[in-house]
């Protein structure tokens, strides 16, 4: 006697024998594995379930109400193995119904590399990256770093700056996984990638679809037209920002651009004037404070002021909705233009700066020597 269970295939309920259920499960699992890289994975799985359900319905009726193992084997053989354009790693080509196809063992840990991690960073993501690499809380790394900074009287600040420029930033999902030493094909990561894809790509596509459909409906579609959208296969719906939010974003973005450009130029001018005159625009450093400490402090202050500005900026980008690509691009261009204009004004109106820049351009090869000389002077003075 066989145990009977119930399965729900996309809305249709079937009674199946337990072995049948296992066969079905194996087929769908294999299909899901083959489709892990497919952005429409969920939708295709629903389609497959429905097709299996249709075939099952044809088997039943007239005195039969349980799908047996032989039925399911035949149905799955008819369905054929799920194939995508590119063969997935370890896929058994041409395997019949997924009955016996065992999946190959997966990697349990991936390669580990040091990256700057930009998610939740304070300055450039160095501490964050180190924390990810060693698998500890970023706050602990930051505290240790600050302690070392104080103990080494600031020398570690240079290490930070060097790492900031030398260590690459984790940009792709793969790199972010490597920053933590996670296996790249781990299930969680695949989910994360899918979420990301659904957020960015699909929302653009859906926005276009919806707009076109709205147009069609408005012109000649009767009311009973079904929506093409299929709720259960589109779980990552992002609310569409209203026109008010977009207009507000359009006003706020240039303003933010002006402020942030001014801030950047101010920081650069202050840094340059610090180097040139060992004082900020006539205000001299207190005795005993070396210029590089002042520069580090300047960078820190800049980062502190800039962080909330940047946060608002990103939030504004969000408000622009799926079509933000061009807004962001033009915002970047505007920002660059503002920096150039402000820099030009600063160069011509801040005393000493123009000469300093000219001096920089004139003999940039001498700069390391200049620094060494300045450092030697400082040391001799101290």
């Amino acid at each position, binding site marked *: 006697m066989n145990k009977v269970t119930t399965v729900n295939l*996309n*809305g*249709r309920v079937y009674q199946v024998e337990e072995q049948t259920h296992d066969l079905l499960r194996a087929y769908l699992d294999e*299909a899901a594995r083959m*489709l892990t890289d*497919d*952005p*429409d994975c969920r*939708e*295709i799985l629903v*389609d*497959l379930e*429905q*097709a299996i*359900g*249709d075939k099952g*319905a044809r088997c039943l009726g007239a005195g039969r109400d349980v799908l047996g193992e032989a039925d399911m084997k035949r149905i799955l053989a*008819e*369905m*054929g*193995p*799920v*194939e*995508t*354009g590119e063969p997935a790693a370890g896929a058994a080509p041409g395997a019949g119904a997924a009955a016996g196809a065992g999946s190959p063992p997966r990697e349990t840990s991936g390669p580990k590399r040091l990256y700057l991690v930009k998610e939740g960073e304070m300055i450039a993501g160095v501490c964050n990256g180190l924390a990810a690499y060693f698998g500890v809380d970023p706050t602990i790394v930051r505290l240790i770093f600050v302690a070392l900074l104080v103990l080494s009287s600031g020398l570690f600040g240079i290490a930070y700056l060097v790492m900031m420029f030398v260590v690459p930033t984790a940009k792709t999902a793969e790199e972010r996984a490597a920053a933590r030493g996670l296996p790249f094909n781990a299930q969680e990561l695949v989910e994360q990638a899918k979420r990301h894809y659904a957020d960015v790509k699909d929302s653009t*596509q859906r926005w276009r679809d919806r707009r076109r459909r709205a147009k069609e409906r408005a012109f000649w579609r009767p009311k009973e*037209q*079904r*929506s*093409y959208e*299929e709720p259960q296969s589109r779980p990552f719906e992002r609310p569409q920002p209203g026109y008010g939010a977009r207009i507000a974003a359009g006003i706020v973005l240039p303003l933010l651009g002006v402020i942030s450009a001014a801030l950047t130029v101010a920081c650069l001018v202050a840094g340059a004037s610090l180097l040139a005159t060992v004082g900020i625009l006539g205000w001299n450093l207190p005795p005993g404070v070396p210029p590089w400490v002042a520069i580090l402090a300047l960078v820190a202050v800049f980062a502190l002021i800039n962080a909330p500005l940047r946060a608002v900026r990103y939030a504004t980008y969000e408000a622009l909705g799926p079509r933000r690509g061009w807004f962001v691009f033009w915002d970047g261009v505007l920002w660059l233009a503002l920096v150039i204009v402000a820099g030009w004004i600063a160069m011509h109106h801040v005393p000493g700066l123009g000469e300093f820049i000219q001096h920089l351009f004139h003999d940039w090869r001498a700069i390391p020597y200049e620094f060494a000389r300045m450092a030697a002077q400082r040391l001799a003075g101290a």
Partner: protein
Amino acid sequence: MASDVKFLAIRKGLLEFLLLKIVSADKVYVADILGRLEGTEFATQEGTLYPLLSKMRRESLVDYEWRESEAGPPRKYYRLTAKGRAQLAELNDYWRHINRTIQQLEQ
């Protein structure tokens, strides 16, 4: 001979072209497509067809709408988009061109 790997590759490459042809004629449901291909050397199965159609939809070559069926849940009916039609025309031309080239080489 027809089961040779090389022949398989050719058939696989042509499948998308054939789908465009079939879908261009009428709004079709996956079972219709399978029926049209059944018995030909391009006979295919749901496991291959659904991922391919989904890819073609992402490339905006085909689109679908839901329609009620006599029994069971509503079905997806596929049709060509303007882009799909343009691509089909191009492929038709290209196919004729290739045939001409092959014939010329045989002479």
